[in-house]
């Protein structure tokens, strides 16, 4: 019999481990906390998108769509910072 | 139109008109081509010329040329803008506070005014802020604007190149009297400004000598009862006075006249004689020497 429940459990475990790592990092001080925020959080989001939301198996179009959204947000943020970061 | 009256303004205007000229050129060429094509290629004038579906050369040209043109426009605008943002070190810095619905000015030595006094040909720094909502501090004749934002200070400066009184207007909608949130910038020679600035509390307010007639009307209190903008008040407005039809009360009854220079003069010197009908008879006679009377009459003749 196919063991279809294994992959989701793996993703779930990875997410929990990453969360624990994030919590541990943020206790070490502001710099590691920021690092965790910038590295681990997107990794977690990526895991959810790829496995739980099945982007892994989707066609090109469906993978481009969320990428466009995230890219747009990044650009919005950087333009916003062209103001606030230089006040 | 309105001449530029500060250092920055001259430059802003040159940049603006230069690009207007360039744009009008392109625009006219474009429109002419469009009209010419429509006339030439009407169905009623048949032709067998093949129509092109595209041309890399042409399309590249009209991508590159506008890009270069637009970026040049940016560059010229930025050059002047950088200067506007860089307040010279030696500038006097006035704190400008907008509030619903008036402007207040505070000088470094503590003097507080409701008009902005500034010396001629000297840099004047402005630190613009607001006590409530956002306002916009705008002197059109100087091509100068800075938003007054609560919780922060925006800096700009100007250097006026002509004496006079200039309108300050609020440009950001701030409530019911947004359009009444106007004030004046009074530009006077440096010596006069210093006399006032260093003269303690009692020093007389500087008066711009241009137009002097207007300054005199103000000091003599005429404007308390006569408006300049046509709005009704205790007495008739000064707006478009010369040549206006009025009904006056003479000993012989009501009479229609057309206001001329003689009438203006006599109304100032001897207001009880033949006043305009329909207004209370409250105007005092003024004791004026010709030095004062003539500029006043001159102003009223050509006034707003």
């Amino acid at each position, binding site marked *: 019999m*196919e063991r*279809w*429940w294994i992959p*989701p*459990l793996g*993703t*779930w475990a990875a*997410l*929990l481990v990453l*969360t624990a790592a*994030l*919590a541990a990092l*943020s206790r070490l001080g*502001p710099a590691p*906390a920021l690092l*965790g*925020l910038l590295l*681990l*959080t997107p990794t*977690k*989001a990526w895991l*959810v*998108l790829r*496995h*739980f*939301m*099945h982007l892994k198996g*989707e*066609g090109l*179009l*469906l993978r481009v*769509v*969320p990428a*466009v*959204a*995230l890219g*747009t*947000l990044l650009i*919005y*943020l950087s333009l*916003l*910072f062209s103001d*606030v*970061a230089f*006040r | 139109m309105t001449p530029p009256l500060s250092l920055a303004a001259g430059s802003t205007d040159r940049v603006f008109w230069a690009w207007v000229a360039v744009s009008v050129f392109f625009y006219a060429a474009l429109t002419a081509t469009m009209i010419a094509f429509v006339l030439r290629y009407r169905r009623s004038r048949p032709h067998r010329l093949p129509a092109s579906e595209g041309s890399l050369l042409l399309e590249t040209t009209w991508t590159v040329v506008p890009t270069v043109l637009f970026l040049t426009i940016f560059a010229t605008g930025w050059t002047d803008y950088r200067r506007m943002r860089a307040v010279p070190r030696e500038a006097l810095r006035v704190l400008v506070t907008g509030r619903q619905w008036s402007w207040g000015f505070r000088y470094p030595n503590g003097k507080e005014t409701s008009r902005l006094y500034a010396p001629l040909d000297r840099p004047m720094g402005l630190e613009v802020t607001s006590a409530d909502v956002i306002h916009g501090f705008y002197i059109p004749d100087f091509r100068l604007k800075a938003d007054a934002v609560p919780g922060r200070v925006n800096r700009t400066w100007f250097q006026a190149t002509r004496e006079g009184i200039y309108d300050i207007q609020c440009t950001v909608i701030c409530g019911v009297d947004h359009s009444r949130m106007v004030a004046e910038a009074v530009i006077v020679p440096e010596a006069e400004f210093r006399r006032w600035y260093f003269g303690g509390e009692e020093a007389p307010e500087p008066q711009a000598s241009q137009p002097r007639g207007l300054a005199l009307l103000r000091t003599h209190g005429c404007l308390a009862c006569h408006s300049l903008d046509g709005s009704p008040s205790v007495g008739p407005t000064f707006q478009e006075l010369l040549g206006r039809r009025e009904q006056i009360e003479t000993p012989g009854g009501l009479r229609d006249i057309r206001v001329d220079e003689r009438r203006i003069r006599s109304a100032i010197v001897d207001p009880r004689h033949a006043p305009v009908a329909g207004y209370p008879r409250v105007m005092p006679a003024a004791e004026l020497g010709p030095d004062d009377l003539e500029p006043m009459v001159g102003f009223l003749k050509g006034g707003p």
Partner: protein
Amino acid sequence: MNTAVHADAEGTRLGMWLFLVTELVLFGGLFMAYAYQRQLHGAAFHVGGQAMDARLGLTNTAVLITSSLTMALALEAARHGARGLSRAFQGATLALGLAFLAIKAVEWSAKFHHGLRPGHPHLASLPPGEQAFFGLYFTLTGLHGLHVVAGLLVLGGILALGKDRPLVLECGGLYWHLVDIVWIFLLPLFYLAA
């Protein structure tokens, strides 16, 4: 009236993803506000973060991640024909979602108790940066909470009405996972900011 044309599965999925894009950007706007304020008030955000209960935040993260797991399993089960099992997993997802909301309610009421709610004089007496921090905290977690509620309504509806075809479950699941992703970002921004 004419009969509606029915979108194929691929089209439905595309439509769903486009909708998720709007949700992403919606929260993206709030993250922009957060980033902006934090840039201007870094220190105050640090202080504000100290008032947060990281344990509650982490617990809730675990709860929500687990609910994502059960949701994914519900879909897989349905795809493999195990409808009963699928429905059980759907039920588990709903329960976990409710648990998340309950923990959130505990947390909010503690904040309310300490006068950290908008409009309270105590909050108004704090420095501007901290006021901004709590303003954003309530807005972001509140809006996220509303999305959890909406997700529960949708998933509950699917379960109650017996509409748990794989395609429907998949779309409901996509929404639920998106809500999870948003939370994944909220955790370090507020609870681990100190």
